[in-house]
């Protein structure tokens, strides 16, 4: 495998087009369908209950329909549990729902509840945006110092690409986004960057041959030299993420899938987007 040489960069225009289409589709989804923001962001009540014999969701919906003014979101959770989410963030609203459940189902047990006020939700949104922006700027500065500004730009573009695609995936599936999603996004950023840096690091090492080989051959050589590493590390990181998706349980579900999509997008963007952009940019000169 390591002795094979692939001509990745001759397909760079196709690869960049695919990425562009995915990003535009994701932005389109975000604008039209939006995200299913959890109460961490919007404020509201979440009640987790468990039943000996879990009733149908529609049954539960009719039991509480008169109590909460706005539409409640009801989901199965694990094997015996149900999660009820309402946008009403008062204690009274939560107590009323619990009372109604208890009077209709003898075997119901409240296993947990969450309430987030609107102020906290707004703060979290702001925190998320500030946090991700600061991380991106800090990373740009670090790479500019260690490499050069052009490398910094071509390694930050894929990050934005990965984050937008991960968000697009969540818009498409309408999986709920909680505060741990911010953690997932920043980890994706870290992981994707890790990949990009390792490839760019090799490009930098081969940089002295630029005038002889031209940028396309140089990038191709670097990609092939790091290919075994890229494949192996992608596999070893995907194993735990897949394990999290399968066995990690319902609480971690959204987090795990965000990681999965982000890592696939991250590997793709390091191999094709960062390098493709570098070829285009360098080729212009």
């Amino acid at each position, binding site marked *: 495998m390591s002795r094979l040489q692939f001509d990745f960069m001759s397909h760079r225009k196709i690869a960049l087009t695919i990425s562009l289409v995915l990003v535009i589709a994701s932005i389109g989804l975000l604008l039209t369908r939006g995200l299913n923001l959890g109460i961490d962001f919007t404020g509201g009540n979440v009640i987790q209950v468990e039943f000996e014999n879990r009733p149908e969701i529609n049954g539960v919906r009719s039991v509480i329909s008169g109590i909460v003014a706005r539409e409640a979101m009801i989901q199965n959770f694990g094997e015996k549990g149900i999660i009820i989410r309402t946008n009403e963030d008062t204690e009274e609203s939560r107590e009323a729902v619990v009372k109604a459940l208890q009077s209709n189902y003898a075997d119901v047990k409240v296993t947990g509840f969450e309430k987030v006020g609107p102020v906290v939700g707004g703060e979290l949104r702001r925190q998320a945006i500030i946090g991700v922006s600061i991380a991106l700027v800090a*990373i740009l500065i670090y790479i500019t110092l260690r490499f050069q500004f052009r490398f910094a730009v071509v390694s930050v573009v894929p990050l934005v690409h990965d984050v937008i695609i991960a968000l697009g995936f969540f818009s498409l599936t309408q999986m709920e986004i909680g505060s741990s999603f911010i953690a997932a996004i920043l*980890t994706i950023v870290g992981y994707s960057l890790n990949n990009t840096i390792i490839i760019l690091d090799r490009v930098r090492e081969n940089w002295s041959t630029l005038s002889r080989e031209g940028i396309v051959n140089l990038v191709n050589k670097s990609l092939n030299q790091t290919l075994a*590493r890229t494949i192996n*590390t992608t596999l*070893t990181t995907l*194993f735990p993420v897949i394990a*999290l998706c399968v066995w990690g*349980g319902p609480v971690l579900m959204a987090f*795990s899938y965000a990681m999965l999509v982000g890592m696939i997008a991250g590997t793709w963007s390091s191999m094709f987007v960062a390098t493709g952009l570098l070829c285009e940019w360098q080729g212009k000169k």
Partner: protein
Amino acid sequence: MNRTDKLRFWLVFIVIAGALCYAYYERNGLNLGLDLKGGAHIVLQAKDTPENPLRDDSIDRLLAVLRNRVDQYGVAEPIIQKSGTDRIIVDLPGIQDPAAALELIGRTAQMDFREVIDSTGRNIPVEPQRRNYDSDIQFVNAQERWREEVARLSNASADLVARSRNTAGSIVAPAEEPGTFYLLGSVLLSGKDLVNAEVAPDSLGRMGVSLEFNSEGARLFENATARLVGKQLAIVLDNVVISAPVVQDRIAGGRAQITGRFTADEAGRLAIMLKAGALPVAVEIAENRSVGPSLGADSVRQGLEAGLFGAGMVLVFMLLYYQFRGLAADLALAVTVLLIFAGLIAFNATLTLPGIAGIILTLGMAVDGNVLIYERIREERDSGKTPRAALDSGFRKALVTILDSNITTLIAALVLFYFGSGSVRGFGVTLSVGLVASVFANIVVTRAILQLFVKSGKEIVRK
């Protein structure tokens, strides 16, 4: 083996032995987050109201009162701390009844004794039911009478509100049972003159709370009861009249008993709240997360399962692909996990569910360093170097890459730690600790193990 190599061996040995001993002796020092062990996480927001404006010391007084209440309620290892300028975080691990805890800490518990000037007198009667009447006409008439009565009572309470505007210091407060409203005179005696409050059933066996006043309170109470013999004295808690007994006689000695519609638990909480004092300012519950112990245990189990499966796949893959060098990577991975746990204990970090996910992810990323090193050594070997030289230059060249890639990830992790809150912050800590631990394991531990292999004559590079 040269001097640096010997030093490296000793470093690895000391770090592993130290981490093992530390993790063993401090194994109870690992804090589990509330999402794992169950409990309530409550964030209170202090509110600025005209009656109780926020002052510089309001939050500190609020903290003191809350500590007092929680201590008396008996929660093991509660965390009560200030957050920002006007918030307080209360973490109550392991409690079984989060709703009761919420009631205990969220209530102002401002108690006053006031004279009853007037009241709407009667409770709202029960709405007539058709089945209690013989004919439709009788039922319609009964409904009509009921509506008139409700209207009359609401007029009466509106009348009380109007009169309270003309009486200085008076308020209108509802009774605990809905329907009745009282017009109350100014405060005769307040909760701050209390020295003790205890649960005590009254002579009829109803649950109540017995009160004991200080000398000032005793004097005020005696004067008030002397003046109000034959009249009603209202006991008002958070602007709700919980009982309004008729004063039979002057009460001296500074003791009183309040009875209301309490259960034993409610009376117990009321006694705690009265003893700990009223909250100095009004509070609002900004955030409240409660996880039952069973849900937390499920999360731990699922996290462990996912971690074991994930780690298993990584270990097996490395062994299959890199053979005995994979073994070196697997050992380095074990060291990474050990160092992560020792590090979490040392930093007094809290392990949360996203934190567990962070550790699981770290497992996959930690072997990246080994992969980089091995692939680099292979390249060096391909270019014709001896095993020993390939090992050295492979490590040297891979080191730069490993540092660059990990430092950029560390930047993201530190941002999470600095800007995140709650479980996200926990994730940032585990990720940061994991990165540092894995870099150490990659470049120091792996190298030490590989040198042992080279020394024992093994060819560490496939041709």
